[in-house]
């Protein structure tokens, strides 16, 4: 797993993926996104070369683009997607600990988070926090709904929950 972060600028994805291709790397699943003014990459790659050679090649790209990176050996475990059965959106005035409290309450109510994306919007002096979560309701939808209602009341945020019924045709 290649983890990479740095100040956002044009060409990071092209340059990094070219470097890995030059090493005969085969990319798996990736998440590449701009967070604030930073660009972040989490990328699965299978490379036949030794880790030290991959490190060296990536270092030269990262020096040029002022990026930091980290490599970890992992098991691929591709083709084992878990389907989410619920989607939760939460938004409200930004407040310290909102993610910890939300995910804590949802975890207790049986939610296994598969994907979480959050953004800070609104005005700089009154920021708004927006969070989208997809996951598996391990203890059922009712348990999550109750937890979410309580969380919403206690934290003065708006929370929506939508069951996901994947249509396979």
């Amino acid at each position, binding site marked *: 797993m290649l983890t990479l972060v740095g100040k956002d600028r044009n060409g990071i994805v092209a340059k990094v993926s070219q470097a890995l291709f030059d090493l005969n790397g085969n990319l798996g699943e990736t998440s590449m996104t701009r967070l604030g003014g930073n660009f972040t990459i989490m990328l699965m790659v299978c490379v036949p070369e030794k880790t030290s050679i991959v490190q060296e090649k990536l270092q030269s790209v990262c020096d040029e683009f002022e990026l930091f990176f980290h490599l970890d050996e992992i098991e691929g475990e591709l083709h084992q997607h878990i389907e989410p059965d619920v989607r939760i*959106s939460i938004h409200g005035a930004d407040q310290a600990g909102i993610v910890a409290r939300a995910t804590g309450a949802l975890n207790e109510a049986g939610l296994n988070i598969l994907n979480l994306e959050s953004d800070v919007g609104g005005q700089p002096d009154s920021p708004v926090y927006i969070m989208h979560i997809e996951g598996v309701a391990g203890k059922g939808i009712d348990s999550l709904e109750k937890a979410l209602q309580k969380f919403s009341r206690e934290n003065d945020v708006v929370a929506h929950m939508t069951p996901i019924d994947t*249509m396979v045709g």
Partner: protein
Amino acid sequence: MALLDLLVYPDKRLTKVSQPISEISENLKQFILNLEETFRSFPGCVGIAAPQVGRFERVVLVDISHKPQHDNHGFLVLINPEISSYEGSNVGREGCLSVPDYTGKVERAVSITLEALNEKGEKKVFQMKGYEARAVQHEIDHLDGKLFLDRLVSRRNALSKRIELST
């Protein structure tokens, strides 16, 4: 009856446009029985299109009756199906027998008017909404050589149907 082999993406044949049926032949009736048996062999699946088993004719089967929470017309054999009107749009998650191990968000019309022949060659008109309308749009796409992969919206695109839980 017989189970038919499924074409799986990236098989290029899935992009072929299927031809209209001009006659409800005995051969077609037998094919529909085999297609249904194949469809039933995938529990949870709500539809199948003839081109998914390599027969490039405009026939689809749809049945969402095992999900009774959604309005439905039961098991449908749709020959030469045409959607004559579309209304609204929403985003829902779809998967496909021909695209294993991947699901994604797709925008579809919420309500449709559908015209098709049944297995006896009788013309039928259906008003459909929600999940059943989504299933029909997904299957008719197969007849036009399209997969849900051609219609994916961003992972960040929110699902539109929401349940308000607080004020």
